[in-house]
């Protein structure tokens, strides 16, 4: 995950090809980008008559609209939102101080980093049955799943961000006889904030995905459950409507956090 983050960040400054780029007008790129979802929508529209398995975009959107007007969506939406919200806050609140501690100590890093990094490839969902065994099906198990999923990226990015705080700034703090708390509040956290935010954004998307998987597996409520229920009775417009809502919600959450990250990077 980190590799790609840095890679993506590097893309902005990387020297491009030596070939003379063809001259483009400034509006062309945004226009092309805008065209992508429109073309996807068009493709969706074109597929509709070919198969019974895909309802038309208009039907899907109408169904989603009815979900809000008739209210059948609220229960599931509320369940997913509260599981994601509770779990995400819990994961962050635990991961942040631990990450800070880890990042400030070479010894703690040396002890724990290999353990945390070593489990990077373990699909967190395999822990869900354990959580179900402990908490039973419901909000607690799902929130715990979300918290665990969010915990690791936030822990790692906080530790890395704190570790990468510029040594000359720390030196400045010491030369001014700043107390540890002052160094934390006035130097380390502001300097590390944008990178910590990257971890929080990644943590959020992983946590959201985990919540949906958890709901697809076993839940009392939630958007994931709505998807599998409407699939079971082959209510395809409703299923597509919920899928659309899930994608939009994930997109909106990411956009929001990404925007916050940009703000922090600028300030």
């Amino acid at each position: 995950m980190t590799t790609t983050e840095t890679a993506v960040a590097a893309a902005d400054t990387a020297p491009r090809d030596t070939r003379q780029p063809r001259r483009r007008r400034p509006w062309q790129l945004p226009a092309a980008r805008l065209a992508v979802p429109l073309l996807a929508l068009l493709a969706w529209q074109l597929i509709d008559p070919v198969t019974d398995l895909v309802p038309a975009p208009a039907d899907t959107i109408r169904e989603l609209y009815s979900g809000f007007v008739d209210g059948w969506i609220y229960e599931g939406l509320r369940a997913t939102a509260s599981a994601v919200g509770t779990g995400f806050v819990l994961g962050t609140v635990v991961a942040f101080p631990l990450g800070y501690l880890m990042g400030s100590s070479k010894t703690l890093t040396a002890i724990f980093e290999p353990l945390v990094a070593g489990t990077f490839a373990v699909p967190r969902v395999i822990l869900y049955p354990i959580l179900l065994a402990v908490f039973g099906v419901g909000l607690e198990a799902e929130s715990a799943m979300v918290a665990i999923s969010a915990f690791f990226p936030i822990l790692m990015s906080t530790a890395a961000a704190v570790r990468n705080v510029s040594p000359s700034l720390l030196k400045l703090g010491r030369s001014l006889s700043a107390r540890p708390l002052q160094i934390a509040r006035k130097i380390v956290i502001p300097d590390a904030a944008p990178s910590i935010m990257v971890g929080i954004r990644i943590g959020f998307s992983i946590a959201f995905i985990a919540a949906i998987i958890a709901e697809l597996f076993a839940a009392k409520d939630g958007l994931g459950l709505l998807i599998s229920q409407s699939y079971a009775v082959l209510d395809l417009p409703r299923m597509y409507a919920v899928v659309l809502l899930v994608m939009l919600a994930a997109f909106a959450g990411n956009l929001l956090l990404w925007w916050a990250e940009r703000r922090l990077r600028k300030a």
Partner: protein
Amino acid sequence: MSGSAVTATARAPSRRRPPPVATVRWGLVIGSVLLLEAAARIGMIDPLIMPPPSTMVVRLGEIVAGGGFLTDLTTTAAAVLSAFGLGAVGGLLIGILFWRLPFVGATFEPYLVSLYSMPTLVFYPILLALLGLGPAPIIVIATTMAMIPVALNTMVGLNSISPTLPKLARSLNCSRTQTYLKVLAPAATPLVVPGLVLGFIYAMIGVIAMEFILASEGLGFRIGYTYRAFEMQDMYAYIVFVFVIAVAANVALNAIERRVRRDME
């Protein structure tokens, strides 16, 4: 980081050597396992919630020895390998395409990046309907997950090649193939390899997570199945197995990545 007056960097090192970190690390791991073992044995943990770790391992041994396990393992492994293979080839091609056609790359890049963070797996009922209940829907979703990091890293790797290198190749009258194979590919490798590593890991996570919710075979399925069948010992045995496999794969891949990076940089 400490706010103390004077750092000890340049002081005489203290004679008393602290235990090496590796000892502490593994001490902590083994200690926690032993703690769980003890807690489960004396009944502090309900055996219906978690059996003692030793029981899990013993049970895992029985499962491995019995029939059926190999089918699950090969199903999962085949799915992971297919998803990784398809994802790697697709990702490399997309990455090269996006590099050759920067405008196309710039157009699609934000979508590719956000696809990363999307629960694409909610499309599974659609794929299920289109492709039927078999390995295909799982492989499709895992392939998408594996492809994205490969494509992005390939594109970035190629884009970050210093413009002097192609110039150098031209000045030496390299053929097109030579330029690609001897100059561009090695130059981009340090970024492409981490992309491939991530791709493999995502293929693995994707396959197991998808099996967990929709398969009828495979390790991920078995974890979900044993949970529903209330066979807690089996469930833990499978979880331990997947955990260990995932950690081992991760460690091995990172070792390869480090190797390549050291050789290339």
